[in-house]
């Protein structure tokens, strides 16, 4: 095998078959401490009645703090992570998560603040939110930002709901949302959620929106276009002006999916190219940690005509410089989060923006785009490149050449693990069969870009000479390829205590 010498995934020697925490339990161990009870004890049975009180929580483990720490540390070692290296996941913008962010998010005044503290006692938190909104206003070129959505998909939902509320407030009954076929799955799901009918708009041969098809689809029933720009092929919609005119002339609004904001920081602003709503993934562009799937933070930037509909409450600054939450927003779509959104993620995102300033953010976009184009050049002779033109921050290849040897994009992904890399996004966008969608970001050195390209080139050779080594990968990870079909066919979704069987 030709794996690189430093494969952080090949750590079999250190890893143990840990088992479930429930299987480590032993009667009488404790993993917690409690202060002496300095008030009279209250017996729940006498306070509530025996009927209202449950029995023992059968199955919960009895483990010490040591057991807990070792268990979760051991299983953590079965994970890959950003600090180990490249995560070239297209549309995910997996960049380095600064260590400072974990410190500042835990400052007592932020981490310990209750959302129902009086506004006078939350001035620091409110000012941070207000500042962050202003920075995002400038970055997006749009007049307002709501920080409330908890993730990108909720930002989308908020955006489409505001658009629906806007049309409704004008007595304008519009039922359709136009969505390019290269869009994320959250887009049609969101439209359906708002009772609107998603209508797919095809891409042209250049991988961008088919303008004539868009023109034909747009009409008096068009509520919105959901547009990802740059799109999921990593291409900027070059005819964005026409696209915007077609939709706006038809009376529709443009919702722009901001998953790919990293490519255009300081280079183009959605407010300048026609967006009426634009969502931002703080956990992508502004690098709040992905956490194995969340939490995220999905602010939405919005045009002036949508401002009355934004989620409430809204942070306002009074003439005397104090901040408060304004709940009196009669046209608001309502709340989308129990409180004000994922504040601790806002602290991190704000720190990141303030670390960079205007020139630093622009350098991010330039380096991210340069890195993607560099990988495109290094790989395009060996992997099918459906769109051979300058890309933005990500490049999409397909497995077409390797398919000829019986190797799929998923096999290539699994084989990459043996070379010490997290796989790219695979089988997306749907418009490219067998897609391998690669986004290196600006936090990868040239050495690592070359190592990654070398690995993919070596795998391309293996596909020709020894395809079996690829189709049976991974070979060096602690777990070999996992059987997803079996998991779905007879789902085991929890551990069951033996006695309860």
């Amino acid at each position, binding site marked *: 095998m030709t794996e690189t010498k430093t494969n952080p995934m090949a750590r079999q020697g250190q890893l143990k078959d840990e088992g*479930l925490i429930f299987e480590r*339990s032993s009667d009488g161990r404790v*993993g917690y401490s409690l202060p002496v009870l*300095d*008030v009279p004890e209250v017996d*729940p049975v006498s306070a509530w009645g025996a009927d*209202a009180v*449950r029995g*023992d929580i059968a199955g*919960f483990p009895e483990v010490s703090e040591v057991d*807990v720490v070792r268990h*979760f540390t051991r*299983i*953590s070692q079965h*994970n890959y992570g950003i*600090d180990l290296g490249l995560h070239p996941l297209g549309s995910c913008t997996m960049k380095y998560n600064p260590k400072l962010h974990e410190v500042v998010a835990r400052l*007592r005044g*932020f981490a*310990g603040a*209750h959302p*129902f503290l009086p506004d006078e006692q*939350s001035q620091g*938190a409110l000012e941070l939110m207000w500042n962050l909104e202003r920075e995002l206003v400038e970055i997006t070129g749009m007049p307002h930002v709501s920080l409330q959505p*908890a993730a990108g*998909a909720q930002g989308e939902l908020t955006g489409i709901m505001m658009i629906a509320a806007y049309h409704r407030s004008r007595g304008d009954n519009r039922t359709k949302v136009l969505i390019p076929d290269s869009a994320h*799955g959250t887009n*049609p*799901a*969101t439209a359906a959620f708002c009772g609107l009918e998603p209508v797919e708009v095809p891409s042209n041969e250049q991988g961008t929106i088919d303008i004539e098809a868009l023109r034909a689809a747009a009409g008096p029933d068009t509520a919105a276009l959901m547009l990802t720009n740059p799109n999921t092929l990593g291409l*900027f919609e070059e005819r964005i*002006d026409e696209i915007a005119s077609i939709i706006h002339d038809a009376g529709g609004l443009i919702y722009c999916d901001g998953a790919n904001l990293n490519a255009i920081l300081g*280079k183009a602003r959605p407010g300048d190219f026609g967006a009426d709503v634009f969502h931002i993934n703080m*956990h992508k562009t502004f690098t709040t940690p992905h956490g194995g*799937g*969340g*939490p995220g933070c999905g602010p939405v930037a919005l045009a002036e005509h949508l401002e009355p509909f934004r989620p409430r409450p809204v942070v306002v600054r009074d003439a005397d410089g104090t901040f408060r939450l304004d709940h009196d927003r009669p046209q608001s*779509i*309502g*709340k989308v*989060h*129990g*409180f*004000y959104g994922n504040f*601790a993620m806002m602290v991190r995102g704000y720190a990141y*923006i303030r670390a960079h*300033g*205007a*020139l*630093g953010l622009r*350098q991010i976009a*330039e380096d991210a785009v340069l890195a993607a184009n*560099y990988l495109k*050049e290094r790989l395009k002779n060996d992997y099918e490149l459906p769109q051979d033109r300058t890309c933005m921050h990500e490049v999409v290849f397909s497995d077409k050449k390797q398919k000829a040897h019986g190797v799929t994009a998923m096999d290539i992904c699994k084989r990459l*693990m043996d070379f010490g890399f997290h796989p790219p996004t695979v089988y997306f966008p749907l418009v490219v069969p067998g897609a391998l969608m690669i986004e290196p970001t600006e936090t990868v050195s*040239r050495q690592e870009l070359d190592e990654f390209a070398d690995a993919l080139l070596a795998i391309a050779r293996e596909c020709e000479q020894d395809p079996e080594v690829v189709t049976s990968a991974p070979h060096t990870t602690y777990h070999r*390829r996992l059987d997803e079909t*079996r*998991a779905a066919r007879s789902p085991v*979704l929890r*551990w069951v205590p033996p006695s309860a069987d």
Partner: protein
Amino acid sequence: MASKPGAGARNDVRGGGRYLSLGQAERAEMLAAVKAESIDELFDPIPQAARFSGDLELQPQMAEQELLAHLQELSARNAPEQRTLAFLGAGCNPHYVPAHVDALIQRQEFLTAYTPYQAEVGQGTLQAIFEFQSLVCMLTGMDVCNASVYDGASSVAEAVLMARRLARRAGKVLYSGGLHPNYLEVTRTYATYLDIEFEEMPVGEDGRTVIPDIGDDVIAVVLQQPSFFGVVEDLRAAGARIGESRAKFIVATAEPLALALTTTPGESGADIVVGELQSFGNGMNYGGPLVGFMACRDRDKRNLPGRLAGETVDADGKRGFVLTLSTREQHIRRAKATSNICTNEALCALAACIHMCSLGRHGLADLARHNLAKASYARDALVAAGATLTYTAPMFNEFVVDVGTDAALVVAACAERGLVPGVALGRFDPKRATQLLVCATEVHSRAQIDELAAAVREVTT
């Protein structure tokens, strides 16, 4: 090149230059490799009209130590750094988070990992989700639990939508007057464009929800345990009533610690159990991130939104875990998905999982009894200080008192003394302008509760 950061050939050392992996020499080599004259050439695909050519007018960049000082200064203007004593709960609950919980979730393998779609390099996250799902099932008495949703509020909204899918018909949702008002508002927002009519079931004099006759047009009944007012509902009786109807029984919780002591929603006949798990292992963070969860019966699992981890084996037959039943989700099912949710609250769910494991079989109930004692003491102390207890039904770690005057003014007056006595309920309902929702937990000492009672007595007399 106008876009060079700082002067000279080095990356900028004042701000975020340290996070960039390319140096000027590499940039030049890579530009040559892609056959571009300048970096600007790579941005040619952006049409001129859409191009932003100036410099963004952002605040000046800061070095790490400057940034830390700036954020410390902002943090210092929030109550916790002024040692303010607060008795606030209301779904964002003050509990002690053990040091090892935070240490473990800061391991880069958990903190920085991607969603474990590639299971072979995400087993740590997947196994933790599987353990999380198992713990929540045992806590709630349910069969299946998802890997988390955003928060308690959106979990109720998703539960109502799920009930609507299961019912396959338009209809009415009855909700308790003791449902968290913010949960209700988010649920109404989510349901704006659906054929669902909402109707409140008022709380009775003792504070418990009065379950009316449930007609055939009702698709779901939503109760909160304990209620927003801190009242422990009689779930068993409610479940028996609802069980006679066609409606789905949804139980929400904003304080899951209570479930360590109360009859489980599962044994009370709940069809869907949802809510907030922030109480376990997560700080308050000015209200977010939180940890929503959704649990249901095995028969309904294919209608459950959100990610699910399931057990399987690898090519060698070794036990492992994968994300499964994903045909429910947006990335596969698109417009027909059960929800549009993608990112969830994985790291917060991990913190909850770790804390629940550490508390274990006996600790959860121990901690819950500790909370019950502290809040009971606080209730008695406030009544002795002249406040009136609003509800007589059993409580857990929160309760409502009537302070006989505008509670918002009482809060403001106490706040000036460095103490926030509770949530003034007039903000949710003008008829409750004299009521205060007070929370006491293991983080409050007897002396602090005495201080609370003294402050309330002082400002109300």
